[in-house]
Structure formats: structure tokens, C-alpha cells
């Protein structure tokens, strides 16, 4: 089960007081159940929905990347669409120009975006809060223009058309379902890496820097190193998401990577729960479905509906869906366990009394 890290510090003693006898096992069973569901899902819905769900997972990887930076480390970026684009174009150029197979474009996209993120993160160290937001906003605004400027590589306005990868012939499934499974694997790996990174020393250091940079530095945390690391990891996730998006959509062009994309990621992050891992999936769902739903409700003012949906989420669940519901679920579970423990304890007492008397 996911917990926000802030929540964890408060929850920890309580959880320890009433540990579920087999909480770890239960968690594993739940996780495996969800994964099994995710694997079966594409085979029971139509190809178009498979495509939509694939996009949801791609956006989830991107939102997860932003969560590491904005949620856990408190660095707000309005320009992550730029790194998403960098990943997309890395994959597209490698596939189109050099005939690299699609799966082999993911590691280079990850590496290039990690390097770009670290390079961008170095000067960004000097900027805090709103100033960093402005610097990254500049990146978001510049992205479409930069893509057009290097038109020898990027194909300029025309973009690059890619052929969709075929599944291996020994597997009897179509491209959409094959890509879904690849993206699912990438998402699970990304969530695993994020969990390892964040639920440990590094995660605590990142949160400490977010909550009180001076105190964190005084404790001996190398703030510059951790902030740069957060930036690089975050853009690495973005790069992988961008590359997957290019492969799945089969086309890259500057119009697809505008400021709105960067803002969508931040919206998805906030709606899902900015300092959570599971929230990324909610964020992906929001990015993919809410604009379309808004369009179905009113084609005259879809963005008003979109705005309304955002307000609704932010007012009712200010910590995001997972950030707000997560602690509530944890609390309820704890109460149930406490009741069970009390009940079990009462029985023991009773038995004990029975034996002594």
C-alpha cells in the first residue's frame, strides 16, 4: 500500500503498535492481483480502449517523474514537457534515421534525458519556488520552437512519421495489445524504482530538503547533490515516457509538445497526489480522460468543464486523490486492526482469567 512520506512519519508508531500479522503478504497479494488484472484487461476491452489505457500508463510514468521532483523534493517544474519531447524525439530519430529497433531506443532516451535533466538541474539549483517555475516555463515555451529550429534532425513542422512496431511473431497478439504490455512493464519497473528510491535514505533526504533546506543542510545532507539527482531521475522518467509515447502514437511533431502538455503533467500530479507513487496512475487517467469527457459534455466550452473538474478535485481532495484517500484508508485499516486486536486481546484476557480462576 502507498503512503505519503509525510503521512508515514505520523503513521509509523501507530502502525507498529498494531501490526497486521501478515500485512506484507496481504500487500503482495493485493499488488499481484492488481498486476494480473492489468495484464488481463487489454484482452477484454476493444483495441481503442487498449490504446487509451496505454496512453494513461505513459502519462502515469511521466507524472511519476514529476512527483519525484515536485512532490518529494518541492521543486516545481512547468517545463517537463520539454524532457518528454526530448525522449520522444530521441526514440523517433533513432528509429527513423538509424533503424534502431523500438525497444532499444528506451535506454538511450532515458540516458539522454537524465543527462539533460542534470545539466538543467545544475543552474536550477540557484532558483527556488516560483523562480524555478519561471525558468522551467521558459523551457516549455521554447520547446516547439527549438524542435522546429533543428529541423535537419527533427523534421521541423512536418515531424517524423514512424511505423508502429510489430509484436514478435511467436506471440499471437496485435500491435496495440503488445505495446500495452510493454508500457505496463515499463510502468511497473518505474514504480518499483521510484519506491526503492523514495522509501529509504534518498527519499528522506529529498523530503527533508523540501520541508526545511537549511535544517537538511545542517544535518549533513548534500542538498545540491540530492536536488540534481531528483532533477535527473525525474527527467529520466519523462524521457522514457516520451519515447514510449512516440512509439505508440507513431508520430512526433512540435505541436504535440507545447506548454499545455507541461501544465497537464503538473495538473495530473496535483490531482493524483503530488507526493505519492500510486497517485501517478490517477494523474494519468485525469490527463487522458478528463479533456475528452469535458468535450463530450460541452463542445462549446470544454476547457471550462476541465477547469471545473480541476477545482472540484482540488477542493474535495487538496492532497490529491491518493494523498487524501490514502491516509483515510490507512486510518480505517488501522482502526479495524485495532478493534480486531482489542477483540483478540479481550479473548486472551478472558481465557487467562478462565484459567487462573
Amino acid at each position: 500500500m502507498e503512503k505519503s512520506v509525510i503521512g508515514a512519519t505520523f503513521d509509523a508508531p501507530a502502525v507498529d503498535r498494531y501490526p497486521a500479522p501478515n500485512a506484507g503478504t496481504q500487500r503482495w497479494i493485493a499488488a499481484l492481483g492488481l498486476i494480473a488484472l492489468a495484464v488481463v484487461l487489454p484482452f477484454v476491452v476493444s483495441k481503442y480502449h487498449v490504446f487509451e489505457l496505454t496512453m494513461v500508463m505513459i502519462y502515469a510514468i511521466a507524472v511519476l517523474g514529476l512527483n519525484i521532483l515536485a512532490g518529494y523534493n518541492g521543486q516545481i517544474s512547468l517545463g517537463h514537457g520539454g524532457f518528454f519531447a526530448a525522449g520522444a524525439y530521441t526514440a523517433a530519430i533513432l528509429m527513423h534515421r538509424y533503424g534502431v529497433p523500438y525497444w532499444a531506443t528506451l535506454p538511450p532516451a532515458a540516458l539522454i534525458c537524465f543527462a539533460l535533466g542534470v545539466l538543467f538541474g545544475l543552474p536550477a539549483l540557484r532558483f527556488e519556488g516560483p523562480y524555478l517555475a519561471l525558468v522551467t516555463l521558459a523551457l516549455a515555451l521554447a520547446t516547439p520552437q527549438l524542435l522546429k529550429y533543428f529541423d535537419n534532425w527533427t523534421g521541423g513542422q512536418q515531424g517524423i512519421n514512424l511505423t508502429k512496431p510489430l509484436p514478435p511473431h511467436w506471440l499471437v497478439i496485435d500491435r496495440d495489445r503488445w505495446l500495452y504490455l510493454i508500457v505496463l512493464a515499463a510502468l511497473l519497473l518505474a514504480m518499483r524504482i521510484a519506491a526503492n528510491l523514495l522509501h529509504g535514505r534518498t527519499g528522506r533526504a529529498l523530503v527533508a530538503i523540501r520541508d526545511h533546506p537549511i535544517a537538511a543542510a545542517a544535518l549533513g545532507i548534500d542538498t545540491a547533490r540530492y536536488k540534481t539527482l531528483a532533477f535527473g531521475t525525474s527527467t529520466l522518467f519523462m524521457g522514457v515516457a516520451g519515447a514510449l509515447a512516440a512509439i505508440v502514437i507513431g508520430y512526433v511533431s512540435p505541436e504535440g509538445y507545447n506548454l499545455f502538455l507541461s501544465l497537464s503533467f503538473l495538473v495530473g500530479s496535483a490531482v493524483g497526489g503530488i507526493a505519492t507513487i500510486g497517485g501517478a496512475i490517477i494523474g494519468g487517467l485525469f490527463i487522458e480522460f478528463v479533456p475528452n469527457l469535458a468535450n463530450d459534455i460541452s463542445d462549446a466550452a470544454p476547457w471550462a468543464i476541465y477547469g471545473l473538474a480541476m477545482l472540484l478535485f482540488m477542493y474535495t481532495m487538496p492532497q490529491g486523490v491518493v494523498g487524501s484517500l490514502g491516509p483515510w484508508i490507512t486510518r480505517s485499516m488501522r482502526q479495524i486492526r485495532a478493534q480486531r486486536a482489542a477483540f483478540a486481546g479481550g479473548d486472551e484476557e478472558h481465557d487467562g482469567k478462565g484459567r487462573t480462576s
Partner: protein
Amino acid sequence: MTMKRALMAGLSAAGLILAGGLAFAAGQYGPGASDTEIKIGNTMPYSGPASSYGVVGKSEAAYFAMINDKGGINGRKIKFISRDDSYSPPKTVEAVRKLVEEDQVLLLFSTLGTPPNTAIWNYLNDNKVPQLFVASGADKWNDPKHHPWTMGWLPTYQTEGRIYGRYILKNLPNAKIAVLYQNDDFGKDYLIGLRDGLGDDKAGKMIVATQTYETTDPTVDSQIVALQASGADVLMTVAIPKFAAQAIRKVYDIGWKPTHFLCSVSNSVGATLRPAGLEKSVGIISAAYEKDPTDPQWQDTPEYKNWLAWMKTYNTAGNVADGLTVSAYSFAQTMVAVLKASGDNLTRENVMRQAASMHDLKLPMLLPGITLSTSANDFAPIKQMQLEKFDGATWKLFGAVISGR
């Protein structure tokens, strides 16, 4: 003898009825078509930077509504499903996949914009879904060998650029030309056409300055100032309406008086010249292939009256001075003509075959002398245009219809 003749007559009548019945029973349908309905898909930028083109989709819907009220096409009603893609290619892919896979449309019609259409080009051709009458003037839609399921409609940007080049070469042989163009295929295609029309060696000498803009730029003021500084006496503006209006205003405000050529994409009085200021637009030269609804010379013709009646009854949200509503009207009429010609064989293959066999199709709101023709090797329906000059109130056509091939 009479008996025999009567029997023959009876038999042949029965044969005819039977044949008719068989033809009806043998009505062949692809996805999205049935005895009662033909589903047509479309994407439009109803929101985002290119939303001024949204009127095209709304007008097409209004035209199909009129056709349906008149009984449809061969008894079948048109269901026109138009989705917003905000001019963002990933959104277009999603919308088109939904139209093809969920809504099960027979074909895609008049999808707008070069990047959005490029994004769905391979998908539609791979899946053998007609991508008919693409609302983009790029040259690449005329590629029947590699993309047999895609067809353009508009005179291409290169065709039009070539027409301007030929005119300038003949009438302004000593011109120093400055070009403002949108930094994409749309802008670059015009420049290629213009160079082609001038001839390669002449083009190098005559074009003295070029400036580009991005659709995300706030204004083109600085580009206009830079072009004026080049000393050019001819300005060619290749811009969408918002930026074309800015350019016209700026040229006037800084007191520059070049012979101003404006691409037909933006020669709508309602969408470009009125926002720019009519007095600032006097003398601008453009090219046309369809009738300007504000031109008094058409206003007594039955063609114009029919169009106006449709505008007043079905397209009430549209502006009667907006040329985009005329384009949409003609786009939709081409679609209806092709579907009519397809008869009861509404398979994707047959619709494509009919689209590729138009012979001098005349449409009421195209300029006299301009017709649509296609063949198995020619997927560019309109290839001719006529030049026109703005007199402060309307466009005045001059010269003959010029072919830009």
C-alpha cells in the same frame, strides 16, 4: 405475336424489377454505411491556436443537416461526427482512432491542418480508410502511389505560389520581393512555388528578404519592420488569418506601401481584412478559386441565393462575409457528389474509386471556369485560380483563370 410481345414486355419488366430488387439487396456496405445511414468522421481545431478554422467543421455539419432534411443521399442520412483535436497531432491520432474503431465511420472527411493530417496519414492508409478532401493545401496529399487512401482538395500552396511567381515575372519584372511566412510546410511550400514560378535564377535575385514566424508568436510586427528595411517593393504574406491581419495593419501603420500579395488561406474579408482594417487592406492582391460572398457581382445569381438561403436557415452561427463558410459549403458538396456517385456500393474501395474519377465537376460557389478533376494518378482536385485585388470593400477579380500546374 401480340401475346409473345406482351409476354416479352412482361418478362423484361419483371426482369427490371428483379434486377432493381437484386441491386437493392446487393447494396454493398463498408463500415459505417447501411440502408439508412452513412457515418462520416472529421477532426477540427475547435479550440487552441488554430480555432479560427473551427467554422469549417460547423459549416460542414450545417450543410449535411440540410442534405438530411432534403431526404439524404440516395435515401441515406449522413451522420457527421466531428471531434476537436486542438490542432495537436497526438490528439488527432486519438480522435481518429476513436472515429474509425469505436464510431466505425465509413471515411474521414475534411480533417483540418497539415500536422494533424500527417499524424493520421499512415494509420488511415494502413487500415484502408479513405482520408478524403484533406483541409490542407500541402502538396503531399497528392501521392496516389504511396498513399492511395488520401486525397487533397484545395489548390496546393505550391500551385498558388507558382501563380504569383508567374504574375510577378510578367507584370513586375524589376520587383524586389520580401516574404513573410509561417515557419512550417505551409509557409515553405508557398516559397517553393513562388521560386518555381519566378524561375530559379530570377528568384535568387528578386527575393531580397524573408522572415518567418511561429504560430505561438504574439505578433509579427518586428518581422514586418525588418522586411521593410530590406528595401523591398513587393511583399508576399504567407500567414494564417490572425497573423495576416497583424501584418496588414503593421505595413499600413509604418507607412510602407509595397505591392502586397496575400495567400488565399487568409484572404477572407471577415476573418482577416475586417480585423486588420478595410482601409488598410486596399490594393492587396490575392488569388481565388471560389466566389467571395461579399462580391456584389454574384449576389443576384441563383448560386449565391441558394448559398445565402442555406446560411440563413442552417448555418446561422456563421458570418455571411466569411469565405471559410463558402469553402466548407464546397467541401461538403464534393463529398455529397462522391457519395451520390457511389450509389448503393458504399464500400471504402468504391468511395475512393469514385473520388478518383471526377470529371470537370462544377460546384455552384467555385469561380466560373474552375472545375474539379481527378484520376487514378491525380489526387489534386482543384488546380486553377484567378487573381483578385481588394478595393476597400470587396475583392475584384482580374485577368484570366490561371493554371498552377
